[in-house]
Every structure is written in structure tokens, then in C-alpha cells.
């Protein structure tokens, strides 16, 4: 290897190393998300009309929670109607972390509808609640939200309050027929109907350092020694890079002989 190549390589390593160090301490790590919307789970549609509301408790696993996707189905459309989304620390508190309004007309059936807000940097391990209602100056208007009939999300549950306004008809959960046939194993019971979950996806964009710490803790959770230690993953990764580097070095210097 010539001297110039060596210096170039050294410069490249320094640049990459510097960027990684900056990224680790000052950057943010997007790309982590948790999917709780599954077609096979989301077999019920709860109607949001009048003063009906639906809420879901959940626990964020990573820092930097900044987006929640929900899934809707148009029922009775109205030009002026909208969906109101509130994010709170708990379903019973008055304080709201974020409030987002989305017009009915921007919602596409069964496509993820994003509700984005500034990242909550210490969201890892915290419990939250989102409440969704419908608002319409000219009733009737109704939007359905996809949910399950059973407890599919263990870290929290949903709660549905039916429309009690005078003009409203009592809505019961209706089936989203395309997915109904995929649930042969689930037996409905009175208790099962009470415990259900909304289909939702969570998205994170948190500080790199705390995100990686959370990731390591999740990697190690429930596993036996040594797989249950966060240090095992760091050590193995470092060892992997060292052995790969050594192999690369040996192979680069290998005299490969004439081409076959």
C-alpha cells in the first residue's frame, strides 16, 4: 500500500470516526417504530360520532416518541367534520401534551393516518394515553376507527364511550368484513369485548445515546446468561469488527495469483 493511499485511508477513518462520535453524542436516531396495527387484530370498527370518544393507554419503549399512526374508515362524511387527537400522560388527566386536528377529507380508508408532535425525549418507559374524538358542526358525521375485539396489546387497553347526544343512534362496533375471516382462533366472550385495543403504530426519533441504551436493555431482556447482559452485545460487536478488520487486512495483502 502506497504512502498516499495510507494517508487517504487514515483521513477517511478519522472522518467516519468523527462523524460517528458526533452522531452518538449529539445526533438523533430515527427508524425505530412499533407496530400494533395488524390487519388480523384490527377486526372491529368503533364509530366516532357525536360525543363518542375512544382512548388507548400505551407504554412507549424508546425515547423520542414523535408520531402515532391510527387507522380509520369513513362512515358518514361531512365537509366540515374533523378528528381531534389528544395525547396525554394518562387518560384521566386534564393536561394535554399534544392536540392535533385532522379533516375527514384528508383521511384515507385503512391507510395510516399520522399524528405528529415534537419528540418527547424522555418517553422511554413512560405511559401515555391518546384520546380520539370526532367534531362536526353539522351532524350527522361519523368516522370509524380500527380496533380489535380482544386484548392484543398487553401494556394498556382501550376504552370506548358511546355517543350519548340526543340525536344519536347507539352505535355498536361493526365488523370490518375484509379481515373478519382471519380470526378463527379468537373466541368472543363478554369480558373479551370489554378488553380491547386500538390498532396503532408508534414512531421514535430520540437521542442516540439513550435510544441505544434502551435497545441494549431490550436485546438482553428475558434471555439467559450471557445473552441477557447488555455488555455481551457490545463486546460481541467490537470483537466482530476487530476480527473482520483483521480478515480484511490479510485478504487485501493476499497474493491472489493470476486470474483464472
Amino acid at each position, binding site marked *: 500500500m502506497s504512502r498516499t493511499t495510507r494517508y487517504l485511508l487514515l483521513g477517511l477513518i478519522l472522518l467516519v470516526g468523527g462523524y460517528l462520535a458526533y452522531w452518538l453524542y449529539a445526533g438523533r436516531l430515527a427508524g425505530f417504530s412499533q407496530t400494533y396495527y395488524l390487519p*388480523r387484530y384490527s377486526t372491529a370498527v368503533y364509530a366516532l360520532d357525536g360525543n363518542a370518544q375512544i382512548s388507548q393507554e400505551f407504554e412507549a419503549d424508546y425515547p423520542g416518541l414523535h408520531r402515532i399512526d391510527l387507522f380509520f374508515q369513513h362512515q358518514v362524511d361531512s365537509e366540515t367534520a374533523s378528528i381531534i387527537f389528544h395525547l396525554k400522560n394518562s387518560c384521566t388527566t386534564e393536561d394535554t401534551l399534544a392536540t392535533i386536528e385532522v379533516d375527514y377529507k384528508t383521511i384515507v380508508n385503512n391507510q395510516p393516518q399520522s399524528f405528529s408532535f415534537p419528540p418527547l425525549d424522555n418517553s422511554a418507559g413512560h405511559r401515555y394515553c391518546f384520546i380520539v374524538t370526532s367534531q362536526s358542526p353539522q351532524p350527522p358525521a361519523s368516522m370509524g376507527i380500527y380496533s380489535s375485539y380482544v386484548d392484543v396489546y*398487553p401494556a394498556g387497553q382501550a376504552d370506548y364511550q358511546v355517543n350519548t347526544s340526543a340525536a344519536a343512534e347507539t352505535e355498536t362496533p361493526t365488523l370490518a368484513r375484509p379481515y373478519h375471516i*382471519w380470526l378463527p382462533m379468537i373466541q368472543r366472550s363478554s369480558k373479551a369485548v370489554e378488553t380491547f385495543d386500538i390498532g396503532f403504530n408508534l414512531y421514535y426519533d430520540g437521542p442516540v445515546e439513550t435510544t441505544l441504551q434502551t435497545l441494549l436493555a431490550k436485546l438482553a431482556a*428475558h*434471555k439467559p446468561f450471557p445473552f441477557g447482559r447488555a455488555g455481551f452485545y457490545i463486546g460481541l460487536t467490537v470483537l466482530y469488527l476487530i476480527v473482520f478488520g483483521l480478515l480484511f487486512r*490479510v*485478504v*487485501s495483502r493476499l497474493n491472489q*495469483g493470476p*486470474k483464472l
Partner: protein
Amino acid sequence: MFRDNDKILALLIGLVVIRGLLYIAIVPPWLAPDEPAHFEAIRLIGQEGLQPTEAVYLTTPMHPDMHASFQAFQIWQLSRLAPPQDPLDPSRPVSDRFINYYPPTSTGSLIIAGNYPLVYHRLMAPLSALMKNLPLISQVYILRLASLLFTTLTVSLGWFLTRTIFPTRIVHAVGMTTFLVFLPMHLHVDTAINSDVLVVLWVSLYFFGLAKIFCDGLSIIRLLVTALALGLAIMTKPTALFIMPTTLVALIVYLARRFYWKPLWLAGSLVMIASATFIGSILLFQLGEGGRAISTLELTLDQPAPVGNYFSPTAMAVYLHTIRWGFLSFWGLFGWANIPVLTTGLRAVWLICIIIGLGMLLFIGQHLLQFGRRPRTLTSNQQDILLVLLFSLIFALISVYTPIIATQSVRWGPPSRYFFPALLPFSLYFFLGYQQLIPARFYQLTLPIWLTAFFLYDAYALGFVLIPYIYG
């Protein structure tokens, strides 16, 4: 001081162990293909002293911690399936019988004695018996470590196979073994609890024995080892059946060289064997239970299943779908075949593979068949064993795809792991094809580019697909 040979082999073995541990650690228990079914069969034999028959599955409770461990690792959620839990008490399973818990929800199959060869399960049963008192999850990880041991032996055999064929060219051994070490699906499947890992090892030993016979000469020991590996492989899993016609080809090629057959005679014989294998394989699936009947020695002939036109648009759509699915599952379809690596870049990988495939054709034409090339670049022994390996690849493809042609159904998949027993010849030819594409001027960069490409691809699979999907 170590020579380059020992140094590189030690580093490659070190890498496969480290990478195997990484895959074992990252992929949660039960999330590898059919892992729960294989584990339960081993547990029944080793810990309960029972043969895994349907009656036993119906009467014997599964391990009491199985549902809790599925819940702890969110296996049903990761697999996008509704958890088979008691509607009134989610901490309890819908049934404590494995037959009512796992297969109905996952569409996974049970390992049933009589229908399935149990060589792998019987081999692992004593280990399972020894760990009876350990927590369930520890048992899973110890069985996975045993798989890693088998995979390390496979990689070592791959190295020695190539060193036997190309004793003066270390570059081929490095290139081929690197493929085995870095292919993400190989590490994913073959570090899990699955009979695939053992069959890949036996078939690798078989190929190594063949290479020794062709390149270093026939001996009783080599013949015995090769025959033993052949028998064990066939008994372990039907996916190894392709080595039966491969053995016939090896015999023909050996005799042709020994008795100076005319090239046309040899070519005619090989084409006849390939055609007979293709038609025979289709008939095997139309008249019986396919290769499984041969592995379990319970061959019964039925009325041929009615199939439509083999060339109809529907049939073509089925073939195309299975080719696409097989390709995807070879390059990365993790978990219960529901975590794809390539959602957007699939066309680029197709393109690269097609170009390397052209390189393979170039190698076969120029070096193996010596079209328009004088002097010869390969010895007769090298030509013979490479020809045998090439036919083994053809037979492996036949064995994977003829069930689909025969039944015109996608129920056979085929997942790429059915092709993994042919991984040694495939990786060697894939590297030879790639090597043909590198201009002589840049030949020194052949291995660094190869190594870097695989490292980056694997890093992408782990860092941008598997980890965010499972732990995101």
C-alpha cells in the same frame, strides 16, 4: 509463524462463531423457521421418553413455560398473528397441547414420527434430556449453540472442499467460505433449532468426500465417509435427496475418465440422468408423498393428482411467484418468513445476481467445457469434480421446484433453506462467476470488494431490518 492459509481459516472460523452468536442473540427464541415444532419433538423424545406421534401430541401437555416465553418475546405479535391465548386470562394459552397451540395459528407443521425423519431430533434428544431441569429459554439457547457448532463444521468443510479442488489458489477458498459466513439467511436458519442445519452438514461432508476422491484419489476411508454422509443426509431430511442423482453423475464422470469415454457419450449420459431426475421427481410428487416417502422408507403410490396445463398462464404465474419467493427467502426473509430484508432494493439484487449468473456461464463455457480456450486452465480432476458440483446444483433446483410443477401449488414454498444443502457448490460457483466479471487489471481487488459487499449487506440486514423490526 502461521501461514496465510491457517491465519485466514482461523479468522473465518472466528467470524462464523461470532456472527453465529450475534444471530442467536438477536433472533428471539421461537422466531426461527419451525423452531417451536423441532424443539417440541426433541423435548418429547429426550425429556418425556415419547415418540412424537399425533396421539402423543394430543395427550401430552407442552412445556408449561412455553406460552409465557412466547408472550415474553412477543412472538405472536412479531409474527403478525393473533395470540392463541385464553380470552378470559391472556397469561394462559388457549390450550396446553402443543398441537392445539402452535400449528393452528402459525400454519407451522408438526414433526410427526413416521411422516418425518427424526435423525436430528434423536441426535439432540440426549442433550435435551440432560437439560431437563434448566429453564425453558436456556434449553433453547443451548440447542441453538449445538446448531452453531454444526454450522462452524460446515463452514470448515467448505474451506477444505475448495482447498482440495484448488490447492494452489487460496482466493477461491476465501471467496467461497466468506459467502457461507456472511449470507444472513444461512446464519439465521442454521443457528436455529432445525433439522436443516444437520442435513447441510452431512451434505457438506458428502461433497468434501467426493472432492477428495476426485482430486486426491479413491480410498476405502474416503469412500466410506462419502457413503456414510450420503446415507445420513438422506435419512435426515428429504431436501438432501438431490445428492442421489449427484452420486450417479459422479459415478458416470469417474468411469468416463477412467475408461476414456467419448465426450459425446458422457454428455448424452448426463443429459439423460438430468431429464430422468426431472421427470421422476415430478412423478414422485404426483403419485406419492414426494421425497419424504423416500427418507422415511414408507413409499406408497397413489392415483396421480389431477393437474392442469403445465404451461397455462395460471401455472406460469405460480412458477414466477415461487421463483420470486425463493429468491427473496434466499437473500433475506427472516422469522416465520415474514421479515423481508429487501422491500425496495430487490430489483438491484436480481440484477447483480443475473450478472454474476452470466459470469458463472462464462466460467462454465471457458474453463469447465474449454470452449475456444487453449491451453487448459483446469486439470482433469478439477474439471470432473466441478462438473459433478454443477450437476448437484441442477438437481438441487429440480428437487426444490418440481413439487411446485407437479402440484401447481405454492404450498411447498419453497423456502430457500430447502436449497441450503447445495450451499457449498452454489457459493463456489457464485464466487467463480463473480470472479469472471473482475477485469484482470483490478484482480487484486476481487476479495476486498467481495468481502466488503457481504459485510455491508449483512450489516444492513441486521442493523436496518432485523433489529428495528424485532426490537423497534
